[in-house]
């Protein structure tokens, strides 16, 4: 290893750099805060990176690459893994040939998410090895370790990160790995074709492998003890480790780098050497529950600290058993739709028409706030179409006729297509109206491309999925395309006419996002210049 440069990188940048240095052959994912920048940086560094329509597709594409002998990383936010859970569970059975690292970014505190699920639970449920870095140096080192372990054990590995690891910049000295990958198909039916007779053996094989990894993890240098005092022991992982080191300067700390499968004997030895041992973890009491189930005496945080992010102050309170109410921070100025945002016209129309609006995930969810308050439900990606169909099926006719689905272009690509199939196949008696707010980008996560923009992740020309053509092919004939800037009244008219028709209708409100418009023009100009 040559002497490495000293860099100031975010966790996401560090993961991308490690993937590039390790010769990862394919990176795929779907944009989602706080994971988005990983693939963008990987692409900038010269890696082959692509946005998939959704996380399930991304994980399957990555799995295929890893079956083929390549190293693949697949990135997503925590809720994205709900979509990708189907391939995950069986990928653990089949294993891989090259390497497969799933980077899964949780958002405790919900800075930009609809829930704060703790995806460490997925590692246990699916039987997947899990590593948790606590800063950018570890994000770099653990990405390399995850690739190495994945290849060595022929198993997928989950790199579980959180907002403060992804988006904090810390110093990285990137060691150059020596990894080589060779893609070559090798037939292995018993391992890769999960019919029950093969899957029964595969499940036993997986559990045996995990037992071996657990034994290996007992001695692994991914877990480190910081010997600082004999009174108090702290067990922590991820960002919670950093807070704990600062909050309890006299405590000894066992930092767990691989948190599934757990090195339980090592944890027992550590915990038993202190009169008091406290588990410090963000989110669910995952570590504390597992450790206590093994019969090891440790303290866990009070339930009040399950909610939101931890910080040094909250860790001090946990260690002091302080359960008094916490001072609520003063609310800042809430986010809002940009002045001049093309979505505004649609939400004004929906408000004025008195619609019942099933909304979706994106900037436009802000249509729920004043002065619009034009949204009645928002659950998960794509649910605007399907939740609205369910309401239409059961509401009394005078209410059913007012129900509208509002979905963004990127969200439509992600999981709106199956909703349209449902609409065509099980049409409500009152018909239905789907509005696609097509601003030509994935605005919420920072202006990423998708299949509907006709450009690749790095903004080069690609085949474009044209929403109105797709809808027409499915048998939806009432399709209106409106430009909200040129014809604001036309947006309201298109929605009200569609509602009155009682048929299955699609309204596409198409105008590029204000923030993206200039960039889109540059991409198009570059295309014309033949660059």
């Amino acid at each position, binding site marked *: 290893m040559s002497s490495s440069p000293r860099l*100031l990188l975010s966790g996401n940048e560090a993961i991308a750099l490690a993937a590039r240095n390790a010769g990862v052959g394919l990176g795929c994912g779907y944009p989602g805060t706080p994971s988005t920048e990983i693939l963008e940086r990987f692409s900038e560094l010269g890696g082959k990176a692509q946005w998939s329509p959704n996380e399930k597709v991304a994980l399957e594409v990555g799995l295929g690459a890893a079956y083929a002998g390549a190293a693949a990383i697949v990135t997503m936010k925590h809720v994205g893994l709900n979509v990708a859970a189907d391939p995950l569970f069986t990928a653990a059975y089949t294993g891989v040939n090259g390497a497969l690292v799933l980077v899964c970014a949780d958002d405790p505190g919900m*800075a*930009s998410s609809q829930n704060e699920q703790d995806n460490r639970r997925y590692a246990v449920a699916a039987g997947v090895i899990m590593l948790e870095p606590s800063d950018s140096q570890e994000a770099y080192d653990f990405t390399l370790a995850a690739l190495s372990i994945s290849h060595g054990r022929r198993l997928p590995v989950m790199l579980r990160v959180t907002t403060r690891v992804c988006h904090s*910049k*810390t*110093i990285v000295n990137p060691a150059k790995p020596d990894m080589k990958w060779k893609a070559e198909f090798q037939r292995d039916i018993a391992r890769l074709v999960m019919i029950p007779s093969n899957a029964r053996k595969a499940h036993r094989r997986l559990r045996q492998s995990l037992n071996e990894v657990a034994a290996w993890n007992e001695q692994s240098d991914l877990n480190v003890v910081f010997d600082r005092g004999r009174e108090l022991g702290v067990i922590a992982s991820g960002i919670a480790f950093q807070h704990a080191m600062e909050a309890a300067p006299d405590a000894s700390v066992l930092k767990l780098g691989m948190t599934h499968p757990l090195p339980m004997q090592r944890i027992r030895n550590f915990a038993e050497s202190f009169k008091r041992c406290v588990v410090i973890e963000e989110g669910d009491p995952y570590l504390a529950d597992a450790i206590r189930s093994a019969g090891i005496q440790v303290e866990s945080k009070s339930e009040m600290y399950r909610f939101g992010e931890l910080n040094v102050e909250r860790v001090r309170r946990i260690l002091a058993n302080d359960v008094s109410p916490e001072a609520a921070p*003063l609310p800042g100025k809430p*986010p809002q739709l940009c002045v001049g945002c093309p979505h505004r016209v649609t939400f004004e129309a929906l408000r004025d028409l008195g619609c019942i609006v099933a909304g979706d995930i994106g900037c436009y969810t*802000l249509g729920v706030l004043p002065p619009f308050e034009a949204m009645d439900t928002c659950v998960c990606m794509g649910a605007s179409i399907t939740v609205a169909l369910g309401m239409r099926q059961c509401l009394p006719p005078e209410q059913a006729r007012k129900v509208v689905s509002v979905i963004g272009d990127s969200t439509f690509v992600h999981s709106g297509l199956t909703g349209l199939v449902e609409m065509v196949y099980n049409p409500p008696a009152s018909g239905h109206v789907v509005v696609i707010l097509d601003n030509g980008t994935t605005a919420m996560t920072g202006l990423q491309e998708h299949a509907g923009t006709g450009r690749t992740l790095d903004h080069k020309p690609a085949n474009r999925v044209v929403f109105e053509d797709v809808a027409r092919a499915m048998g939806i004939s009432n399709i209106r395309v409106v430009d909200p800037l040129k014809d604001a009244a036309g947006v309201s008219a298109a929605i009200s006419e569609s509602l009155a028709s009682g048929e299955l209708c699609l309204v596409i409100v198409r105008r590029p996002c204000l923030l993206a418009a200039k960039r889109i023009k540059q991409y198009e100009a570059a295309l014309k210049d033949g660059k």
Partner: protein
Amino acid sequence: MTGKVINVVVAGLGGQGVLTAADIVAAAAFNAGLDVKKSEVHGMSQRGGSVACDVRFGQGVYSPMVTPGEADFLVVLSADQVDVNRRFIKPGGAIITPDDIDENLLADKRGLNVALMAALSRRLDIDESHWIAAIKASLNPRLHEANVRMFQAIRAAE
């Protein structure tokens, strides 16, 4: 924690250049050879809402987040963000606001983030060369000359 850590909170509204300002102070400390951590939250908060960014530097930094009551400096790009972030300031900590900038030295309103970093730089023991390199690393090359000139003028004022 080994040695003294300086805690800076940079706050403002989405689109004002809060993240760039924080990048500059973080890069300046990095260039000075210090340990640095910088933390921010992306996503919905960018849509015109309140944005705050933490920068911590010294000989050894653990948590990337500034603990309430421990910030040495609160730098705001928008005066209405002082109250929202007041809980972060330690007793005797300093607040730097746009009012601290001599309007005659601020050629372009869009340079406010750099101007505030110049005001902050006067109170920190980091060599000017590290700040200049940080500004150049954080801004588009066509903005370098004007911003460096403004930075030096404001830093030299008083």
